[in-house]
């Protein structure tokens, strides 16, 4: 009957597991990505699917009639990581092939429709100077002189804003 004694022991262990204090480390604040456009661009809100269409160059004109000029960020930058995960939903290598293919087919012109901005300052400078330009900056770094678009009616920082760096989970790696 030695197993009878094991019952309360097992129950105690189970209770210890259930009651184990959770990790009290403060959760890191989510990093949001802001979509910024020129102040003359009358667009103020985009649905996430429309945003994807603009960034994938399936749509190449703004409703105002100006051509979309996309300033992407360096591969490996936090901005580009969120963009790849939440907007393009593809790896950096596949995005490169995708845009090269668009350029090869003549659907867009590289250097005009899309290019790489080496820093937030230069990306923003381009957006300020070009009516059809659009770029991405971390929501915490949005400067003056540009418009931040709402996505699905949400502003960066609001609950439900879709362009947020997904918290790192075990077994899930960034693209």
């Amino acid at each position, binding site marked *: 009957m030695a197993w009878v004694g094991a019952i309360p022991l097992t129950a105690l262990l189970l209770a210890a597991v259930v009651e184990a204090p959770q990790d009290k480390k403060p959760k890191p604040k989510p990093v949001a990505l802001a979509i910024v456009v020129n102040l003359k661009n009358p667009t103020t809100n985009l649905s996430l*699917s*429309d945003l*994807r*269409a603009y960034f994938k160059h*399936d*749509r*190449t*004109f703004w409703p105002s*009639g*100006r*051509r979309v000029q996309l300033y992407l960020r360096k591969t490996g930058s936090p901005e580009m990581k969120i963009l790849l995960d939440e907007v393009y*939903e*593809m*790896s950096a*290598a*596949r995005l*490169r*092939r995708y*845009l*090269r*293919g668009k*350029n*090869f*087919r*003549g659907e867009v*012109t*590289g*250097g*005009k*429709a*899309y*290019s*790489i*901005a*080496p820093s937030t300052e*230069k990306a923003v*400078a*381009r957006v300020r100077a070009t009516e*059809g330009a659009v770029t991405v900056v971390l929501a915490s770094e949005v400067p003056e002189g540009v418009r931040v678009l709402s996505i699905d009616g949400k502003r960066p920082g609001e609950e439900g804003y879709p362009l947020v760096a997904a918290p790192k989970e075990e077994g899930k790696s960034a693209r």
Partner: protein
Amino acid sequence: MRTQDAGRQTPAAARSLAVAAVLSVPGALLAQNGSTPPQSLEQLQESNRALERRVELLEQALGDRHHTPSPAVFDATLQDSFEEEQFWDEDDDFGLNFRYGDAVVSFQIFGDVGVEYNNPEIPRGDNSTFALGTVDFTANAQIGEHFRLLSETVLNTTSAGMTNTVQMRLWGMWEFNDQLYIKLGTEHSRVSRWNQLFHHGRYLELSVRRPLLTRFEADGGILPVHHTGLEVGGAVHKDFGRLEYWGAVSNGRGILATDRNTGGDPNESKKIDVGFAIYPACLPELRVGSSLTFDEIPRNPNFTNPERSRSIREFIATTHAELQVDALEIFGELAWIGHDARASGRNYDSHSGFLQVAYETGDWTPYTRFDYRDMAEGDPFFSDSVIPSRDLDAWQQIFGLRREIGQNAAFKVEFGVGEGDARIGGRIDEQTTIALAFQLAWSL
């Protein structure tokens, strides 16, 4: 670019050093002299001269190291223009881009080399063949907001070692908006999605070899993959998803299946293409589309087959589906080709298709593809050539592996096994086919 970056920062660094020198030297002088002030005006002037010489030496040393102008000539205006130039230089991640006035020109070069083993041997070579692929020069220019030009020139080498230069594409396009564009010139026909996506951009193409359905006209292909004419199309985004549509009027087929008719049309009747594709809102990773082609193939004035004494009416219907979910990529096409020989009144129906599945895992992408071609034997158009094989059946299953090399190149290894009909001694025999291919493809 790092050098330029360093160079751009140098004037500021020089200024800082100069300021530091200005600040430190009097201190050093004071330290040397203790708390004793300079004894005379001459000593102060001498200190100043020493200071100026030191600043000059520092500036010279920095200038030599980084080849930058001195702060005196590096005024704000010059700095602005330098930064503008610098910004533009940073844009070269996607090909070579140049701006000239209101125009931006983007150059891309595609190239490939490879080796193949085929059993039985292919018509143009022995069992094993090293082959130069093609070098493809593409220039794509945007002028203003609505006008775009594209030129694609391909250099390819024949088995005899001759290099041919072919102007593959040349067109101008006016885009009114996303809903409407008009394009005039020579373009890859949209009869096949594969053909439209990749064509000579072998680096863009996942596999080593094109599917049987989409082979070029000169390589035993059965579809008209080039056309010269007028294309109108566009796309709309609605609640149901994205809808693409297009229509084209072009020169159409030539007398033989190898003809491309870029320079003219041997008959009055033009080829008509219409098509559409949709990305449903409920599954935006999926694309399905279809196209219809109507053409009148001209008679062959040097006919040996009486059915070529009159024209042949051609009807092609194709459909395609693409699905990309995360790392999984599925791509398939089907085509039905109908030929009505006006001379005999006989109909010849053929069909062909492929299904390719790939899975990207980091830099490696394994893939497999099933290809088939079920042809109407004796089709007067497809059998009218020096090596009549287009009207014969074939199938193959390929297994391949692609490895990205950096950002602009990839190597691919591919093994294929299948069966194909062949005309041997006046009769048609079925043969087992084995192919092994390696390709290195790149894009600049």
